[in-house]
C-alpha cells in the first residue's frame, strides 16, 4: 500500500498538483512556440534579431501585453471587455492633446489624466455589468461604440501631430537599453506584479473562483459584484495608461487610434492560455500571447511574406490554441478520473 502511494507521488502527487503542472506547461508551451518561431525566422533572415527590429517588436507587443493584463482579469472572471480599443483611443487623444492646450504640462500629469479617463470608462463598464447584472460582453460592445463616438465628436476632423509633443514624451518609446525600450521594462514589471497579485492575493484568487463557478463563488460568500467591478475598473485604467503610451509611440493621434485592438487583445489572451469562459490562465501567459502575435506579424514581414497573411495567421493560431486547450482539458479530465478510481479502493 505504502509503496504504491510512493510510486504515485513522483508522477504528480495530488490531482491539484497535476492540474497546476499542466497549466504551467501550457504557458511554457507558448514560450517554446515563440522561441521556435524566432529561431526559424532568424535562420532564414539573420537581420530579424537586429536591435532595431527587436525594439520594434517589443514596442508593438508592449501595448498589447499591457491591455492583455487588464483583459485577463476580466476574462478570468468570465466576463469580457471589448471597449479597451476605444478607451485607448480616447485616452491617447485627450492626453496627448493636453500638450497643445496647456503649455509646459508635466508628463506625469498627462499620464494621470490618461489613466483617469480609462478609470472612468472602467467604472461605467463595471457598474453596469456588476450591479445591473447585464452580461459584460453586451455592455462593453455598447461602450465600444459610445466611447469611440465620444472620441470622434471631441476630435472632429483634427488630429494631434507628432511635432506638437514635447521631446521627453516622444522619448518614452524610443529610449532603450540594449534594444529593450525602458517602457517595455516598466510594463513587464507591471505585468509581473499583476500576475503575482492575480495568483496570490485573495482578491485575485476570488476572480478565478468567480470565473470557474459563479454560483459556487456566491455560496462561499465571495462579493462577486465588487470583484467584477474592480476587474473592469482596473482593465479600464490600464487601457487608459496604454493610450498615453500609444500616443508617445506613434505621435500622430486621430480618431482611429486603437480601432480593432479589442479583438487582437482577446486573441492574445486566449492564445496565451486564458480560458474564454474564465477560471484559468495567467496574465504572464497573456503577455506572451501578445508577444507571439507581435513577433509573427514582424516575422512574416522579415521573411518577405505579404503582410496580408498576418490576420489569417492570428486567426489560425487562435483556433489551434483553443482546440489544443480543449484537448488538454479532456485528457486531463480522463487522467484525473482514472487516478481517483485508483485511490478509492
Amino acid at each position, binding site marked *: 500500500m505504502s509503496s504504491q502511494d510512493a510510486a504515485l507521488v513522483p508522477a504528480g502527487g495530488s490531482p491539484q498538483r497535476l492540474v497546476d503542472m499542466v497549466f504551467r506547461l501550457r504557458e511554457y508551451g507558448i514560450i517554446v512556440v515563440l522561441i521556435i518561431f524566432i529561431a526559424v525566422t532568424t535562420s532564414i533572415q539573420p537581420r530579424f534579431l537586429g536591435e532595431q527590429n527587436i525594439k520594434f517588436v517589443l514596442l508593438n507587443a508592449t501595448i498589447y501585453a499591457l491591455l492583455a493584463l487588464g483583459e485577463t482579469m476580466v476574462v478570468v472572471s468570465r466576463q*469580457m471587455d471589448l471597449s479597451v480599443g476605444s478607451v485607448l483611443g480616447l485616452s491617447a487623444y485627450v492626453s496627448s492633446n493636453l500638450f497643445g492646450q496647456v503649455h509646459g504640462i508635466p508628463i506625469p500629469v498627462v499620464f494621470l489624466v490618461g489613466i483617469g479617463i480609462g478609470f472612468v470608462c472602467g467604472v461605467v463598464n463595471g457598474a*453596469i455589468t456588476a*450591479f*445591473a*447584472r*447585464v*452580461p459584460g*460582453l*453586451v*455592455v462593453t*460592445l*455598447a*461602450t*465600444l*461604440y*459610445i466611447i*469611440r*463616438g*465620444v472620441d*470622434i*465628436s471631441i476630435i*472632429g476632423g483634427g488630429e494631434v501631430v507628432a511635432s506638437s509633443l514635447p521631446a521627453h514624451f516622444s522619448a518614452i518609446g524610443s529610449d532603450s537599453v540594449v534594444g529593450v525600450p525602458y517602457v517595455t521594462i516598466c510594463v513587464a514589471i507591471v505585468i509581473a506584479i499583476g500576475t503575482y497579485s492575480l495568483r496570490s492575493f485573495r482578491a485575485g484568487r476570488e476572480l478565478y473562483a468567480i470565473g470557474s463557478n459563479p454560483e459556487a463563488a456566491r455560496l462561499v460568500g465571495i462579493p462577486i459584484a465588487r470583484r467584477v467591478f474592480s476587474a473592469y475598473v482596473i482593465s479600464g485604467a490600464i487601457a487608459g495608461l496604454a493610450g498615453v503610451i500609444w500616443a508617445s509611440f506613434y505621435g500622430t493621434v486621430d*480618431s482611429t487610434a486603437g480601432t*480593432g485592438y479589442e*479583438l487582437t487583445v*482577446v*486573441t492574445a489572451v*486566449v492564445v496565451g492560455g486564458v480560458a*474564454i*469562459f474564465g477560471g484559468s490562465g495567467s496574465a504572464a501567459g497573456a503577455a506572451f500571447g501578445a508577444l507571439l502575435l507581435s513577433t509573427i506579424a514582424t516575422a512574416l514581414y522579415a521573411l518577405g511574406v*505579404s503582410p*496580408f*497573411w*498576418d*490576420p*489569417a*495567421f*492570428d*486567426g*489560425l*493560431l*487562435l*483556433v489551434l490554441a*483553443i*482546440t489544443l486547450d*480543449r484537448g488538454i482539458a479532456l485528457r486531463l479530465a480522463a487522467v484525473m478520473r482514472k487516478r481517483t478510481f485508483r485511490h478509492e479502493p
Partner: protein
Amino acid sequence: MNPEPVIAVDVSTVAPTSSGEPPAPSSTPGVGEPQPVNAGSGRFAGIRGLARWEVALFATFVVVFIVGRVLSPQFLTNYNFFNMGLSNGELAIMALPMTLIVVTGEIDLSVSSTLGLGSSLLGLLWMHGWPMPAIIVVVLICGAFLGAFNGFLVTRVGLPSIAVTIGTMLLYAGIAEILLGSNIVSNFPSTYTNLGVYGVPGIGLSYSTVIFFVLAVIFGVVLHFTPFGRSLFAMGANQEAAIFSGLRVKRTKMILYIVSGIVCSGAGILYTFRLSTAEYDNGTGLVLSVVAIVLLGGVSIFGGKGSMVGVVFAVLIYSGLLDALLLTGFPQQASGIVIGGLLLLSVLVPSVPEFRARIRAGRHRLRQQVPEAVIVHSGSAVRPLETSNISTRSGQGGPSI
C-alpha cells in the same frame, strides 16, 4: 411640396400600426400552441415580457420616424427609403441567421468576414474571367463551407463559439486579404451593379431590402412555427435538457452555421454589386452592428429568448435612426454614441425590475434572517450539534473542538 410629406407621415404611422401591431399579440398564442404540455406559467410570463418588449420597440420605431420627419422633410420620401434600405440591407440580412444562432445560445462573430471573403472571391473569379452565374454559385458554396467550418469547431470539437468565431473572423478576413491583396475589382457588368442604383420595379425599395423582408418572413416562420425553430429555443434555454429530450443539438447548430455562411456570403454578393467594388476589407466591422441589432431586438445573449418580429423592428429602428442622424448633419462616425446608447438601454431596461426586486430582497433578508445567518456561519453553533447527533463519529469530531 408641403402636403405630400404630411400625407406620407400619416401613411407611415398608420400603416405600420395596422401591419405591425397584430404580429406581437398573434405570435403569443401561436408560440404557445405547439407545445401545450410544457407551457408553464413561467413560459407565459416570458412570452408576455417579450411581447411587451416588441411593443416598446414598435413605439421607439414610431418615435424615430416621427422625429426624423420633424427634423428633415426629406426623411419620409421614397428616395430616402430606397437609400436607407440600400445602405443597411446586407446588415439586416445578416441579422436573420444571427438571430437563430443567438437563440440557441451560440454566436457567430465571423459574419462580416464571411461577407468580405465572399466579396473577395467574387472579385477574384471575375478578374479571372469566370461567368457571373457560376461565380455566384461558387461564392455561396464557399460560404456554406465557411459556416460548416465554424459549425464543426463548435459542435464536433466542442469549442466555445465566441472564441471560435473571433478566430475565424480573423482567419476569413485574412484569407480574403490573401485572395485579393491590394487589388480592387470594379469592372462588373451594369446588369448586376444596377442593384445599387435602381429599386425593385413597382415597389421602389432596394433589392437588398426586399430580399431582407422575404427572408425575414421565411426565418420568422421557421423560428416560431416549425418544430425545428421551436427546438432552437429549447437548446438555448437548457442545452442539457434539450440533449436528453432527444433533440439533435449538434446537427441543428451545424445547420444554422451553414445557413449563416450561405446567407452572409450572399450578402457579400449584394454588397459587392451595390458598391460595384470588390475589396478585401469589404464589410469590416459590420459584425458589431449585426450583434447590436439582434440584441436590441430582444434576443437574449444567453439564448432561449427572442423573436423575429423584435429583430425586424430593431433593424427598422437602427436604419431609421442612422438615417435621421445623417440627414440632420450629425457626424456620421459619431452615430456610434446613439447605437451604443440604444444597445445599452435595451439590456438595462429589462433588468430594472429584477434589480429593484433584488435590492428589496436584500433589505428584507438583512432584517429578517440575521439569526439564521449566525447559525450557518459560526462554527461553534454547528459542530456541537453534529457531534451530539452522530455519536459514532464522536471520535472523528475530536479535532474540531
